[in-house]
């Protein structure tokens, strides 16, 4: 058993039998108020999120969920199919993988983590950094090369991201999947 102040971002806690992942955790202490932890939680089963607050010494049940490496294979009907090294297939709905949906593209080779709860796959995590190709963006308006001026761009699956002004159609870019932010221009995957 841990206390609320020991719980960090990406830890998973059990509440009333359901696993919730901590998406944000902020510690606050002032005056005579007992220290509190403000947390944003996401229910890994339902996908619902909740802003919550805890006393710093509230007891919490942390769970370590099983994870295995998988890669995206194909989409069948409304299900997204991932396979592991032994070619076992795992089907997930768009709702199950809502947070990574913007980065799912055919032919992607990223090694993802399939997350299990009580023997059932409940979600998939992408690597922190992924590489994607720009499908469309306007030509540079200002000729900026610093990388500080940003402009909109669209990936092959329709996801919009802000990229550096010097990026062009067909360029490969690195994206931080935690924030959705453009990181840099990248080489094409091998």
């Amino acid at each position, binding site marked *: 058993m841990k206390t609320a102040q020991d719980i960090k971002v990406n830890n998973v806690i*059990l*509440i*009333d039998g359901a696993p*919730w992942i901590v998406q944000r955790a902020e510690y*606050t*202490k*002032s*005056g*005579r*108020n*007992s220290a*509190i932890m*403000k947390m944003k*939680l996401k229910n890994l089963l339902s996908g619902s999120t*909740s*802003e*919550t*607050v*805890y*006393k710093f010494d*509230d*007891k*919490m*049940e942390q769970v370590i969920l099983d994870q295995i490496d998988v890669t995206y294979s194909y989409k069948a009907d409304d299900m997204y199919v991932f396979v592991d090294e032994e070619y076992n297939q795992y089907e997930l709905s768009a709702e199950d993988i809502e947070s990574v949906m913007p980065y799912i593209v055919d032919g992607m080779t990223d090694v993802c983590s399939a997350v299990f709860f009580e023997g059932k796959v409940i979600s998939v995590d992408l690597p922190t950094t992924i590489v994607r190709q720009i499908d469309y963006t306007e030509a540079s308006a200002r000729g900026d090369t610093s990388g500080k001026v940003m402009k909109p761009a669209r990936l092959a699956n329709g996801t919009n991201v802000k990229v550096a002004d010097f990026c062009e159609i067909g360029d490969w870019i690195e994206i931080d999947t935690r924030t959705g932010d453009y990181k840099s221009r990248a080489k094409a995957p091998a």
Partner: protein
Amino acid sequence: MKSWDIFCQVVDNYGDIGVTWRLARQIATELHQPVRLFVDDLHTFHHICPQIDPQRNCQRLLGVDITHWHPDSTIDPSDIVIEAFGCNLSESIISSMLARAQPPIWINLEYLSAEPWIEECHLLPSPQRHGPAKYFFFPGFTARTGGLLRERDLLAERDRFIIEEKAEFLTNLGVEPAPGSSLISLFTYENPQISSWLDTLVAGEASIQLLVPPGRIQADIEHWLGEDKLVLGACYSRGSVVIHPIPFLSQRDYDRLLWSCDLNFVRGEDSFVRAQWAGKPFLWHIYEQDDEAHLQKLSAFLQLYRQQLDAASAKAMTQFWIDWNRRQDLSEGWTLFTRQRDSLESHAHVWCSKLSMQKSLVESLAEFTQN
């Protein structure tokens, strides 16, 4: 009709029981709903409410059922359970809550603060491992908080008292206001620098009468006076300053003291709020924390309070409050503060009126729990 349980653990002083007792009374008298107050220290309770018998485990007063709360008490919970100031409920009480067909609404009533983060956390759920969910309820000074404890007829009662009963009340305390004299009530924590303030008062021309109930500042005053012990009913004169030791007062009479004085020095949480309802200038001696977190809380209140105060008054008030709370020399701060007394007085009145337009803490609680 909903029923309420309020749990209070007396940590120190009178703030915890002071706030929960007021809250319980208001639920009983204004919402007309059954309320039980569980308190772990009836002796402290007796100090602020002499009708409480510390020897009796269960008693009823002003519509509130009061129970001496032991850690191993087994309780069949009411519809609404309030744990005041993060006092932890036992596993047995939580199990009883879970066993109810309709689990209670479980509220953690927090300490008062003016810090902006209070608004973000007010009424947020705190889902527990095995339920039911608890909610954090933050009292505060803005519409996005839980508000302040304020009896429905408090301000009308205050205004009526000042006209009809103030003189008699002071006489009963053994205080005869001298013409042109300022009355100041003093109920703060220890502060050795009070000597610099008292020296400044004595050196000034203004006539001051200082009304001092028993409390933690008393030893510092005795030291300054060179007296072994302040004697109740006696008057200690030094220059234009007269110090009146007065008895420890019930909550009702303490309100009346605040209403009778021109300036109030208050401490903690309960008397801090009551001073604001008095509509008079005041100084807040905040509860001190080892890591100085209290200064952040003090600063947050000052920032809010002085928003509509003119620059000179805001500066004077801030300096005097900070000097007092940092236990620094008070002579310069006091001189600046007294220069702005008119402006501070008028602002205190405006501030009180503004706060009274907001929902009271009991109204906010009722709205949250009854809908």
